[in-house]
């Protein structure tokens, strides 16, 4: 274990500053481009590279009867295509499958960094990265909605609930407008960000807490430190579950929004 007990212990309990990654290029320190060359950005690029290499290598020579690796790559796309895009949007959902599958892979791998040794932080615990994805989804679902229903038609489609007494509309239309057209990308981004942020915090608490207990002095506290570290391992497994779930939820909700935009009825 790479522990510098004194240093780590001084940071316990961890504050939000543990998410403040400084640029890896010292000359950019302080400029607006500092954030573009941090550990998190590096992890994003690595995730992209890993995904691209994985797919290009496994799908270099595809065969009708797939090899194990080809099957794995096909299932990554096939699950999103069949179980999310087609199931939720319908047969025409296939045209959104590439975007949804890319979102899923991107979110999954960037999330995965949170439990990969030496990385141990997900870029998605910085709000900026989830915001990019959420805004893309938002732009797409508003775009396809306007393309299908026209600008006014889409506004009506997404704000006016049919079968509602007329006097409810003055209350309902602003609420629908807010929730469908403004809040959706925000909740989408914040859900992913908050889960990864909190997950990292929890892992830090148990890991650093163990260090703090170990260094605290009294022999009696040493077993408690071991317990804390053991629980950090348990929470790592839990984090694996959460990060997969969040990648799935993000993709699923994107598909649901697409579906709501191109659906005929409300």
């Amino acid at each position, binding site marked *: 274990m790479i522990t510098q007990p004194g240093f780590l212990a001084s940071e316990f309990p961890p504050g939000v500053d543990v998410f403040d990654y400084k640029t890896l290029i010292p000359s950019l320190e302080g400029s607006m481009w500092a954030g573009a060359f941090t550990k998190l950005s590096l992890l*994003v690029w690595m995730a*992209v590279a890993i995904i691209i290499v994985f797919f290009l290598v496994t799908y270099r020579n595809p065969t009708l009867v797939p090899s194990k690796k080809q099957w794995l790559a*096909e299932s990554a796309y096939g699950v999103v295509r069949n179980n999310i895009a087609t199931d939720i949007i319908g047969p025409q959902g296939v045209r959104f499958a590439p975007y949804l*599958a890319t979102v899923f892979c991107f979110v999954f791998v960037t999330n995965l960094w949170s439990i990969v040794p030496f990385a141990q932080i997900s870029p998605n615990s910085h709000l900026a990265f989830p915001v990019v994805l959420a805004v893309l989804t938002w732009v797409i679902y508003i775009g396809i909605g306007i393309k299908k229903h026209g600008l006014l038609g889409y506004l009506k489609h997404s704000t006016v609930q049919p079968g509602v007494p007329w006097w409810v509309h003055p209350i309902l239309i602003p609420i629908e407008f807010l929730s469908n057209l403004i809040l959706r990308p925000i909740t989408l981004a914040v859900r992913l960000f908050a889960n990864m942020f909190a997950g990292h915090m929890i892992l830090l608490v148990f890991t650093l807490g163990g260090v703090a207990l170990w260094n605290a002095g009294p022999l009696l506290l040493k077993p408690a430190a071991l317990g804390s570290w053991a629980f950090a391992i348990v929470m790592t497994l839990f984090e694996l579950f959460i990060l997969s779930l969040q990648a799935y939820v993000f993709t699923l909700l994107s598909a649901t929004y697409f579906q709501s935009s191109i659906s005929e009825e409300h």
Partner: protein
Amino acid sequence: MNIAQEAPDAPAEHGYNVLGVPLAEVIVGLIAFGVLLFVLTKFVFPRMESMFQQRVEAIEGGLVKAEKAQAEAAALLSQYKAQLAEARTEAARIRDEARADAEGIRTDVLAKAREESDRIIAAGREQLAGERASIVRELRTEMGSLAVSLAGKIVGESLEDEARRRGTVERALADLESAGAR
């Protein structure tokens, strides 16, 4: 690492803003995701789609082929059955014909044989009748002269009178004939 002292809810200028969205990170996220989206949708997913399609076609093609083979087999079977039935009726027809032929031949032969026998019998009868008639004719001429000569010898008188002689002989013969026919 920057060791900021505990500043729980201080959005101070130098503190780290958790909800901040730095433009630099947005740009990195956009470009990174854009590159990923481009590469995957351009080089990977279309190939997967075509592979899925090929697989579907392979399976469907197999099914169609199997169906075709089955239909072919069924057609052949019905054809063979039809041929068999045809052959059976043909055989029955031939048998019936043969039976009818045999019957015809038998009756023909019988009729011919009966005709032949009738003809032979008739010819025999005719021959007999002819012979009898010629015998009768011979006898008649011979018996006339014999009887005349015999009677001449016995009576000693010459029966010169032609008319009387002819009448006597004729009468005797008629008596004789009627006596023989009785």
